[in-house]
Structures are given as structure tokens and as C-alpha cells.
């Protein structure tokens, strides 16, 4: 009766949870603060996938989940969804971003300049093993440039539009309250543009990389060139009930725009942005977006395919649900299987002599 032993209801699940939490030990404000300080990239990734910009809560979720990313994202999403939407911030245009890093692979130099900003791209990936032997690793201080780069940079696509290289559809003004909100409405296909971008913004980084990489390797139609990659801070400008527009603070954002020559004879763009700094995610997402128009049904670059399958909470939840008992379903299949065995076998096909 081994199976019955794995049941046992509330006591069993209570003790099982205790066993897990015992491993993590006491969680206090100091641990949360240390996670926030030491792991900013991880915090950014979790905030992006949770679509909730709150580094302290993200650090708390990571502490509580012991670093299990999917659990941390679920914790934050479940908290986020019960919170009221107080107001909708004003849209942010690219040239209004407080830009830390902005590069283009499409041109040697671009209006506003290539700004490397913080990056490990050209670092040698050597493990600083000395740290384990008691020699703390102290980063070499930055030598500030004589003339700081301007905080605001134009968008490269704006130059391309002026050159007639990129289609420039008229911008439609949408009232803030009318912007579709994926967290309050189901995703349906063909997806509204806002839903697509929101869905990419909160997608699973690893899942997006896997599908984006498959497109980059050749399972997509378009080869991406990074038109513009930007790490920046965006001002969250909201309207006070009395009418004054003010900044409620800044959030870190990343965005990628990739391009390729389209069938129309113009350059086509793929775009992805997310909360927090996460370059792999936005480049992968923009590549999928670039490849999506006209993609065959069921291909990994088809919008329905990649948006459904990169949803971190849904994908991870369904994966772990297979641990639940399925013996009723199994019994039902077993019955059909046994029935088929006893049913008269079909006549074997006659092979012409």
C-alpha cells in the first residue's frame, strides 16, 4: 500500500513544506537587503517576468523561494494581481529615456553616438577564485569621461524613418484607460499589439532565448541585426487627481530593436522591452517579434506559439502539475486498452502475391 502512504492530507503537506523551509532557515530583513544589493541582475529578471517593479519585494520573493525563479515570479504575480491599479503612467518615448547604454550593430556610428555604458561584453570571464582564499575582489574605479554622454539620445529608427528606410505609420493616440491590459484581459489571437508587447515584456527569459535562438539559427525567416539596444531609466510620470503631472520615480528598462530587410523593400523592425535590465531577453524577444509576421501556424516564430509557450507562470506550473496523481485518467485509458485487446482483431491486410 505504498501509494496510500503518499496521501495523508493536511499533516503531510504541512510537514513537507516545513522540510523545505527548514533548509532555507530564518528569513530576515538583512537577508533580503543583501540579496537586493548583491544580485541586481537577478532582481531585474524577476521583476521583468513578474511585471512588478519593486526591488525589495523581488528580493523578498527570491529569499522566500530560496532562489527558485519560477516560484519567485509566481509569488510576485499572485501579490501583484490583487493590487488596485491607481493610475496609468504617461507613455515614454525613446528619446525621453535617461540612457545608460545604447549601442547599434547596424552602423559604425550613429547620431548621438555609441554609448557602451555598463557591460561585461568585453570582459574576460575568469573566475576570481582568490575571493575564496580570503582576498576580496575590489572592482577598479571608473575613470569618468571628460565630457559626459548626454542623458537623452535620439532613436535610430527616427533617422531611418526620415531616410525612408523604415515604414512610418501614423501614431494613434490612445487614451490611457483604453490601453489594453494583459493582466486584466485574456490574450487572444491575432493579438492586439499592446498585448503582444506586454506578453513579451513578462515572458520567461530562458524560454524566450530558446525560441529566439532557434529563429536566429535558421528556423526563422529573418536574420536579426541589432538596430538599437538600450539600457535606461524611465521616468514614471503620473497625473495627480488635481491635474498636476509629476514623476513618481524612475524604473530601469531595457529595449531592443532588431531589423532585417523585408519583402516590402523597406527595413522591418522587431521590438521588445521589459522592466529591468535584461539584454538576452529583449534581443530574443525582438527577434521573435521580427520573425512573427506571416509565420506559418505552429512554427516557433508564430506569435501564438511563442507567446503561449514563454509564459513563465503557466509553463512552469503545468510542468510541475504532472507530479499530481493521474490515476483516474490512467484507469480510464487502461480500460480502453484492455477492451481493445479482447475485441475481435481486425483482419490483416491482404498483400497481393
Amino acid at each position, binding site marked *: 500500500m505504498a501509494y496510500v502512504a503518499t496521501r495523508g492530507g493536511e499533516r503531510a503537506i504541512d510537514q513537507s513544506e516545513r522540510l523545505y523551509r527548514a533548509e532555507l532557515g530564518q528569513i530576515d530583513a538583512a537577508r533580503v537587503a543583501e540579496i537586493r544589493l548583491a544580485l541586481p541582475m537577478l532582481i531585474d529578471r524577476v521583476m521583468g517576468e513578474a511585471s512588478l517593479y519593486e526591488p525589495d519585494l523581488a528580493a523578498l520573493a527570491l529569499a522566500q523561494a530560496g532562489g527558485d525563479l519560477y516560484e519567485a515570479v509566481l509569488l510576485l504575480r499572485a501579490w501583484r494581481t490583487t493590487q488596485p491599479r491607481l493610475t496609468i503612467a504617461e507613455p515614454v518615448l525613446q528619446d525621453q529615456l535617461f540612457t545608460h547604454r545604447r549601442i547599434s550593430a547596424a552602423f559604425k556610428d550613429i547620431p548621438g553616438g555609441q554609448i557602451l555604458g555598463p557591460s561585461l561584453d568585453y570582459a574576460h570571464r575568469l573566475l576570481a577564485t582568490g575571493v575564496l582564499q580570503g582576498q576580496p575582489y575590489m572592482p577598479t574605479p571608473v575613470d569618468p569621461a571628460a565630457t559626459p554622454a548626454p542623458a537623452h539620445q535620439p532613436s535610430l529608427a527616427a533617422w531611418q524613418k526620415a531616410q525612408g528606410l523604415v515604414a512610418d505609420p501614423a501614431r494613434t493616440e490612445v487614451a490611457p484607460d483604453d490601453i489594453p491590459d494583459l493582466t*486584466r484581459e*485574456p490574450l487572444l489571437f491575432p493579438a492586439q499589439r499592446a498585448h503582444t508587447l506586454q506578453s513579451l515584456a513578462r515572458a520567461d527569459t530562458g524560454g524566450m532565448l530558446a525560441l529566439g535562438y532557434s529563429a536566429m539559427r535558421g528556423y526563422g525567416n529573418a536574420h536579426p541585426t541589432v538596430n538599437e539596444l538600450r539600457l535606461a531609466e524611465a521616468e514614471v510620470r503620473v497625473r495627480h487627481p488635481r491635474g498636476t503631472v509629476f514623476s513618481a520615480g524612475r524604473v530601469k528598462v531595457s529595449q531592443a530593436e532588431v531589423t532585417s530587410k523585408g519583402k516590402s523593400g523597406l527595413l522591418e523592425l522587431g521590438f521588445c522591452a521589459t522592466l529591468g535590465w535584461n539584454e538576452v531577453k529583449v534581443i530574443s524577444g525582438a527577434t521573435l517579434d521580427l520573425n512573427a509576421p506571416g509565420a506559418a501556424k505552429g512554427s516557433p516564430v508564430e506569435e501564438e506559439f511563442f507567446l503561449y509557450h514563454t509564459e513563465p*507562470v503557466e509553463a512552469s506550473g*503545468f510542468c510541475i502539475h504532472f507530479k499530481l496523481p493521474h490515476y483516474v485518467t490512467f*484507469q*480510464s485509458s487502461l480500460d480502453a*486498452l484492455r*477492451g481493445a485487446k479482447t475485441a475481435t482483431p481486425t483482419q490483416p491486410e491482404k498483400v497481393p502475391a
Partner: protein
Amino acid sequence: MTIATLTRPWEAMSYGFLDASAKRELRRKMLKAIAVPGCQMPYASREVPMARGWGTGGLQVTLTLLKPSSVVKVIDQGADDSVNAASIRSFLSKVSGARETWDTTEATLIQSRHRIPEERLRADQVLILQVPNPEPLRPVEPNMSVARQMHADADYGRLWLILYEQIVRSGRVMQGAAYPSLVNGRHVMTPSPIPRWDVPKLHMAQHLTFLSAGREKRLYAVPPFTRVEPLVFSDVPYQVEDHAALTCHRSGMTGYFMNEIPQEDGSSAFELSDSHLGIKAIRQAEGAAVKIGPTWYENGKMPQ
């Protein structure tokens, strides 16, 4: 007048966990689902404090229906003491103050994964089935937007075709659980992975059934007294699992859906899948004043 007098005191969570806007959206979609039986209604499907695929769709519907006077039963594969059923049930009572029960006849709301209790449900009871995959067309059309179009056109030919192919290849219909069924003569639905044994219980039933898939963001309903007809050919009748003659080795009951327990000697023992029905039968045999309600199946047969 101060702001404090105009607002309610702060609370960590809303009654029944979901906030009012989430419940309002769900109620609208639930009413729509009742209005068009068997038709899948997309809904926002909020995140809840449980992983997707673990009953989050059923949970959202149940949370919306709960009130303090509710009596709630939760089963997984027929069992009340299954770990996930216990977890969901304690969450439901914690956020709503509703009373918990294992007794089908006592419950006002029954959330279930993959079984319909053997005791007949009444008009004052609501059944909420958890659904992993709401799309009966998934085996023939994995793309959801194409499948949606096929439902609109009542284009179910390919479902009939796979049933036909199964008969040709295996001599019988091989569909196990989740048998595709035509609701109200219009929409084909998956009744969720309940065994074929349970599908006839939905046909012209007195109770209301909601089926909700949280991960896939779809809910649908079978209102009371609605036709639910499994897809069959007129010359190949619908076959439920061959359990009518099996006897539960614990309770001695015969004629209900059973769990098969493999034995060391190579044989199988059987026990009632509806675990609380078994408990009631055992307690009744011991002389306790326990009432077993009328069951759908009588002597292993569903009365026509």
C-alpha cells in the same frame, strides 16, 4: 470629516482572496458561459497563490461563488484526503470562512479534479471541475485561433474521424478520459479528464456545472437540464469503463467507478474511487447513523 472616516480599514486581502474587479469579470464570463452552454469563454485568469495546472481555474470560479454560509467539498481523483485537495480546501475555508466537508450530500460547492461524485447532485449544488486543457479539438488542431474558428463553424468532422480511425485500428473507441461531448446540440466540449463513467452524469442534470481552465484562461458551463451527448456513431454505442461488476475490497460496495490497486501476487484489488462514499458505506456497516444519498448509477447501470 476626515479621509479615515471615508475609507474602510486596511485589510491584507479581499474577502475570498480575489479583488472585486477580478470577481466582476469572472461573474460576467460565468453568466455568458451559462447562456451559451459548452462554449469556451476566454477570461483574464488572475494569478492565485498556487501554481498553474494545480486547479487555479476551478479555484477562481469557486472563490467567486463562495460566501460565508457555503459548505465546500474538494476532491482530487475522487479523494477528499488527497494532498492537493486538502491544500485547496483549507485555502478556500481560510479566505472565506466557509465550512469544509467531505460529504457530497452536505456540500453547496464541490470543486473536483477529474471525478464527479457518485451521489446524485441536487439543484442547490454547484459542481466546479478543474480543467487542464479546455480544447476538445487540441488532438486534431493545436492552434487555438484555428480551433476557435472551427467551433464557430461547428466543424467537428476531424473529431469524428479520429473516433472512426480508432474503431478501424483497434476494434473499439480508444478515448479514455475527457470524452468529447456535444452540449445542447451545438458546442463540443471536453468534460475535463473525468472517466467515461462520469460523462452521463452531466446529461440533463439538476445541478449547474462550471468547467474552468486557469492556465489556458477559458471557462465553460453545463447549465441544469442541458443535453450532454458523447460523440458516438449510431451503430457503436457509448461505452463506460467496465467497472459495473467490480467490488470495493474495503467497503464491499459494487457498481461504482473503482481504483485498481496492483497486488504482490500479480492480481488487482479494487477500491471505490469516490473515497467518501466508501467511508460512509463502511461506517454504515458499523452501525453509525450515516446517510448515503441516491446515486446516479444503480446496480452498476445508469438509468436511461
